[in-house]
């Protein structure tokens, strides 16, 4: 069933690892909350790539099925996350960054 001349899954997985870490680092270094969300999306996409690559390597469909769940979760998260941001920014119109949200500390 599987064509012999596939590119080894290692390439995809390495790519995914790099993408994942770029996303993670992005979340750490950016201060705009929306960009931070985007970085989370990058990480989720990296995971998706991983699932798909494994799915092919294992010749197992469930890897692809799982990606659907990730998509749904991502969508739900974004909806709620953006709603929270909207609620916050309603109060603070002057474009606050994540660093300005630090009432709670210590």
């Amino acid at each position, binding site marked *: 069933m599987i064509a012999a001349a596939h590119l080894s899954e290692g390439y995809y997985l390495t790519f995914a690892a790099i993408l994942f870490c770029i996303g993670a680092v992005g979340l750490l270094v950016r201060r705009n909350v929306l960009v*931070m969300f985007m970085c989370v999306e990058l990480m989720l996409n990296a995971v998706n790539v991983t699932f798909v690559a494994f799915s092919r390597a294992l010749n197992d469909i469930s890897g692809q099925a799982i990606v659907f769940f990730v998509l749904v979760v991502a969508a739900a998260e974004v909806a709620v996350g953006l709603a929270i941001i909207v609620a916050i920014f309603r109060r603070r119109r002057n474009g606050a960054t994540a660093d300005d949200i*630090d009432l709670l500390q210590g």
Partner: protein
Amino acid sequence: MNSRDLLDLVWLVPLLPLTGAVVLLLVGKRIGDPKAGWLATGAMGLAFVWSLVMLIAMLSLPAAERSHVSTAFTWIGAGTFHVDIGFLADPLSITWILLVTGVGSLIHLYAIGYMHGDERYSRFFAYFNLFATAMLVLVLGSSFLLTFLGWEGVGLCSYLLIGFWFERTRASSASVKAFVTNRVGDFGFMVAMFFIVGALGSLDYSAMAEGAGALSKSTATAIALLLFVACVGKSAQIGLHIWLPDAMEGPTPVSALIHAATMVTAGVYLVCRAHPFFERSGVAMDVVALVGALTALIAGTVALVQPDIKRVLAYSTVSQLGYMFLAAGVGAYSIAVFFVLAHAFYKAALFLGSGTVIHGTEETQDVRRMGGLRKYMPFTAAGFGIAWLTIVGLPPFSGFWAKDGVLAAAFYDHSYVVWAIGLLAALLTGFYMTRETLLVFAGNERFRADALVGADHAEGADAAMVTDHAHTEHDITASPTVDYGMPVAPAHMTHEPHEGTPTMILPVIVLAGLAMIAGLVELPFHGLEFLSKWLEPTFEGAEGAKPTSFLSGFGLSMLAVAIGVTGIVIALRWYRRGLDDPGDDPVDRKLGAAGRLFGHAWYYDEGIAALVGGPIRRGAQWVADVFDQQVIDGGVNGVAKVFGAAGAGMRKVQTGLVRQYALGIVLGMVALLIWALWRAGIG
């Protein structure tokens, strides 16, 4: 009722004064002055009567059987260790209870008058009775432990009575000093008991009698020396003598009863009682003899120059106790006991006499402010005078026989060094007692307000008082060991001196009389050594050396008398007319630097006071304030501080920035990944 049944009732002797004490402690205030005193005296008198009954009962037994133990109940029993509350009646203890109750009764009687008007009158007699109880337990105890009970009991009473006038700082300090110094001796007593239990398995005197001889020499020496440490403490021998002079802060009857006649001789009792250990050791005996001799000498030197009437007597007591130990140390226990008896009579007489003098001169104690008092208090002067003649060792008074017996025993024991020292001490005794007697009762009257003040000597006030005041008021070290160097107080008397009440005169006279005739109980003539014979069952096989011939014995006696008389003569020459200037004591002038040394009691006390009040106290303060609070507790709190700092650190890390929290997660992840690398065997 046969005599053994009677002896079973020996516990009545301590019980009588105990009853008195309890009654007085509980309802003494209601009994009042002077009934309380009569009650206490009555209890003592009854005890004396009962002691006489005991004596008779004892005498009715054959000599070999004169030892009776009556056991009340088990005191402490655990494991193989067992001690009873039991009373041992034997010639030694009977002798002592007679002494305690007899002299005690007289001094009680004296105190009725002396203490009259004191606000804590009944309590004084309660303590007095309690003291008698403890002393009787001490001598009647059938084991070391029970003796120790009495030993501590008399210490307690001594503490209470020295500090009786607790409002005076000097009194309360002296009482603490007395107790603590005695505790040093008790340390020896306790360790000795541990040794005894280890060696014999029992603290009973009967076990000692059976087992002491079989002990190794070193064990016996250890036990003996440790016991002797206790004796040194209680009997104020050189080294631990410092408390006794201070004890004069107590009322004078206390000085007479406790610090002259009875308690301080407990050490002698203990050495006599524990003689098997000393005998077995040998070395210990030499130590006892030497310490005794040195004490006799050194205390004598200090007594030479003291200006305080009681303090002279105190040092004299120390000196005389030295003689007793000297006797015991050369194996002459009977002589030692004889000396105790004689000393009890004359020293009690002297103290009571001095008490009457103090009483009659509105609390004057400085002999330089007295003089010519025989005119005002003739009976006391007579009693005091007789006692004086006795103590200086003039024949045929008891003092002569006692001192002569001691010196002879030393000489024939070939302990020539201690003999020589004893002889020298006799010279000093002759001098200082004569000095005191003359300054008090003879010569010019210096107590009047118009008498010379001796102002040019006032600045001679030095160290003793200075150190006394340098310390804070409530200080253990602030105790008045010597008053030497104090300027003469201005005369303050508002009335003429007066004689004491009959109850005060009577005991002095009786005691002086006894002092005169007490020699009869032990004359160094064959067949007249009643006391030695009576005590023989106790000291079986341990009798001291005897003169080899009458002539050499007589020669020695004459030598001792001659030496004593020399001292008297010197004192007579200096003090016959009293003092022209109260601030100028010839003995000071003549002795020079040595006088200051003697006067300050060889600076021993001041040295100890300086040590305790100085480096030791600072060291203890450092331990308490710095080491305990900052090192140990600081360590404890330091642990808390470390955690607190860690908590502060965590608060700092928690910046409130969400990115940093995410960084925390990433760093944790990185750490786990690094672990994973290690785990997978990569890198």
